[in-house]
């Protein structure tokens, strides 16, 4: 087998040095009653060529572009990935390297992550960003735990317009310690109702997502005004970081922690993972932050270099008193996101964000023009909610057969919103795709 270099001769020589009679003999220290009685019942090993055939056929049973037009967002976004980015990730010095504990021979990874941290901090208007969390959902859960640690309060307020699956992860993470989660309702225009917050003074954090699950841009400044000086941390969450090429950054609006999903930045959707949990905060909280941090320093000859730093926050040193249990994070995805942000540049980011917004606006107005109701009036970025008339699910299914996925039905997530669908338009859809969709929906 091509990954196992040992020849019969090698094995014989090595067994002799070790003093074992056979490969089985190497396991003689394992008590008999712990040994497997039967062999591994696994399918016969495949050649590379058989594997190619198998996987091609399995992958064929998936609905992806260009064959399908998928108008889904909701935490996973279809964006064009430049060939240059995919190519650079193929450099196995990045992908087959370990966590950069031995800094002298890991400067590639370390500088790439330092740059990622800097780009994320700039994007979100924050002082410092970490080297990544697993995804946007776990990042949000860890942000709330961090706020709880920093304030020593036990209650958090979470907007009902944060991604429903993120809120479920938050509940799972906060459940064992019995922390209380209060849900903030929504206004008619589709933004979070903050009125209840004026009365809450025992909150460790207020968490709001923008753009929210309905694609609507929240009034982050209003949240910032409420939390400033109140001893409550403002956690700004997001699922679509591209929005910050166009919108005011969470940091500029008073966020203490800004965290979310970075998959949009050059990372394939891959049925929901791996992604990258972006995580950033104000500098006064840096020692409470979970995750790894790369810092700049000098070597013995005064040459600049990078190292992992502030490691005393982490599990391998603090163990049960660590800021988190996280060890392996999403390093290669963070590197990918950095490569993508570097390729876009500030100018490109702005243009691409505007294009996403405009294509989405185009579809929204075309649907409104065709007589469909857009129930929420607040401005959106690249996703929006449309109301389809009763009996629509037959049309939805017909469109699936025509290889069009016309949005995400909201009923499973918000039962009171049956008949509403969340549609997403990114730069991957042409005007003719949008016109075709409207035609299909009318006809």
């Amino acid at each position, binding site marked *: 087998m091509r990954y196992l270099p040992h020849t019969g001769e090698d094995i014989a020589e090595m067994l002799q040095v070790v003093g074992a009679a056979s490969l089985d003999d190497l396991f003689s220290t394992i008590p008999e009653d712990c040994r497997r009685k039967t062999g591994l019942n696994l399918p016969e*090993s495949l050649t590379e060529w058989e*594997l190619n055939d198998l996987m091609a056929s399995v992958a064929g049973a998936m609905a992806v572009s260009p064959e399908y037009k998928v108008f889904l967002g909701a935490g996973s976004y279809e964006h064009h990935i430049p060939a240059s980015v995919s190519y650079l990730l193929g450099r196995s010095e990045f992908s087959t390297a370990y966590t950069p504990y031995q800094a002298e021979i890991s400067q590639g990874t370390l500088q790439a992550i330092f740059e990622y941290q800097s780009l994320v901090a700039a994007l979100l208007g924050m002082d410092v960003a970490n080297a990544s969390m697993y995804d946007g959902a776990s990042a949000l859960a860890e942000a709330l735990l961090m706020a709880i640690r920093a304030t020593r309060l036990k209650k958090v307020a979470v907007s009902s317009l944060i991604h429903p699956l993120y809120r479920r992860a938050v509940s799972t993470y906060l459940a064992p310690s019995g922390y209380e989660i209060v849900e903030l309702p929504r206004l008619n225009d589709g933004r979070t109702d903050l009125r209840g917050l004026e009365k809450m003074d025992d909150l460790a954090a207020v968490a709001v997502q923008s753009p929210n699950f309905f694609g609507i841009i929240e009034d982050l400044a209003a949240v910032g005004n409420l939390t400033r000086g109140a001893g409550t941390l403002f956690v700004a969450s997001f699922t679509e970081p591209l929005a910050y090429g166009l919108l005011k950054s969470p940091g500029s609006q008073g966020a203490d922690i800004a965290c979310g999903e970075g998959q949009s930045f050059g990372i394939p959707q891959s049925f929901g993972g791996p992604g990258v949990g972006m995580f950033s905060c104000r500098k006064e909280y840096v020692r409470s932050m979970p995750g*790894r941090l790369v810092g700049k320093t000098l070597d013995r000859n005064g040459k600049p270099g990078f190292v992992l730093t502030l490691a005393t926050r982490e*599990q391998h040193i603090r163990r049960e008193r660590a800021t988190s249990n996280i060890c392996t994070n999403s390093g290669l995805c963070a590197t990918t996101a950095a490569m993508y942000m570097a390729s876009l540049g500030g100018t490109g980011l702005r243009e*691409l964000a505007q294009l996403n917004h405009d294509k989405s606006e185009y579809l929204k107005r075309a649907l409104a023009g065709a007589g469909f109701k857009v129930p929420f009036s607040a401005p959106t970025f690249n996703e929006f909610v449309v109301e389809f008339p009763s009996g629509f699910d037959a049309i939805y299914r017909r469109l699936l057969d025509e290889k069009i996925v016309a949005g995400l039905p909201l009923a499973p997530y918000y039962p009171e919103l049956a008949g509403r669908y969340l549609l997403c338009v990114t730069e991957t859809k042409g005007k003719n795709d949008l016109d075709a969709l409207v035609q299909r929906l009318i006809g």
Partner: protein
Amino acid sequence: MKESAGTTGLILNEPVLFEKGRKGRCGISLPRRDVAFFPLDETLAGPGPNFPDLSEVDVVRHYTRLSSWNFGVDTGMYPLGSCTMKYNPKTNEKQAALPGFAGAHPLLPVALSQGVLKIMYELERLLAEITGMDAVTLQPAAGAHGELTGMLVFHAYHKSKGSRRSKIIVPDTAHGTNPASAALCGYSPVNVKSNERGVLSAETIAEVMDEQTAGIMVTNPNTLGFFEENIRKIAEIVHAKDGLVYADGANMNALMGIVSSGDIGVDVLHLNLHKTFSTPHGGGGPGAGPVCVAKHLEPFLPVPRVLKKGEKYFLSEDFPQSIGKLHAFYGNVGIMIRAYSYIMSLGAELKKVSQLAVLNANYIKERLKGILHLPYDRPCMHECVFSDKNQAAQKVTTLDMVKRLMDYGFHPPTIYFPLVVHGAIMIEPTETESKEEIDLFIQAFKDVVKEAGDDPEKLYGAPWRPKVTRLDETEAARHPCLTY
């Protein structure tokens, strides 16, 4: 004299991104604008971040140069203990990049997601077979995430029995993620010492196991490289007080086809796909940490779960006792596809993988034991642990030795872990290293140890050959500079 693996060569300096570029450059092909411009409300619009503007050439050169400063498994041997730095097969990358997988949205209607659901369903069963456990979740995104999942399962189990437990038994050889994960669930770790053989004694566990203890977290083989030979008795003791046994499966590379965790009393086990199952480490992830459980704990697994009816796969949330969700979607599917490809490429040869991993480690142990101090002189599993005791008189530490090893062209082993050995040097070669590569490694270590005696300055100042020498970590921690 044979040439050292490590040598010098021309690499280029490269500044940080922010010091490069020119305003107006762009490194991507912007898609065609075929719709009107719709200005955003002024109160919402911001200036956007001040990213540098770079051309595609700027970006490709930048990262190509950075990559040349790195050492990966593809560069050379990476004997990090408990990390299982085995070769990452390139065909796995090809499969994960297939458009049907890479381009798939997680919330597609189930009828249009049958390919990925099939892989997930089958991978669960393959991992169950390999570990001898009954049910699997692929949702955790890393080992520590799996440990948290396991602790939440413990918590849910005890809650379902109306029992409040506040403690968990953690051996002195445990990885830091173990007590950290336990603490996230409100458990206080009860630390127990390993015995003179470097394993846990049943008596030690019996002394601390009580009705306030949720159970025990073991790593098997443990971080000293030894099979926990008393595990069956320990499991009995823990089970007798209705506790559960959690196994950290980071070291599974030693046991495939040899030991079935389900048979030795393990209730919950996590695996690291980025260790045992060959998916790349990526400089710090992404990984995946599937959790395998015994049948009676299946109801607590995270949702949604992948089920099969006839020939069709579907997702189900109908598990009322589930601990909930730890990841927005289903976990790191891209990593699962790589691991699946690996398992399908090896089949029952996975047993050979474990056998050769253990052979390689024992070979290194035997060849280095006269040179480095071996605290436990007996057969090991897939990794062996030395200490720097023999070099103390020369005032040379583990750190000095491994820094010099880099000049010879090898990534250092794991150092200063486990904590129970002074100056621990944990070496795990994995099965993908050939005998001649290992012989070079052994010779390099011997040369370093000789230099420690003859000319320790060579070690104190090492490494000499990489782009940078030892870095000032003190200053980096005192005055952190974390962004540009």
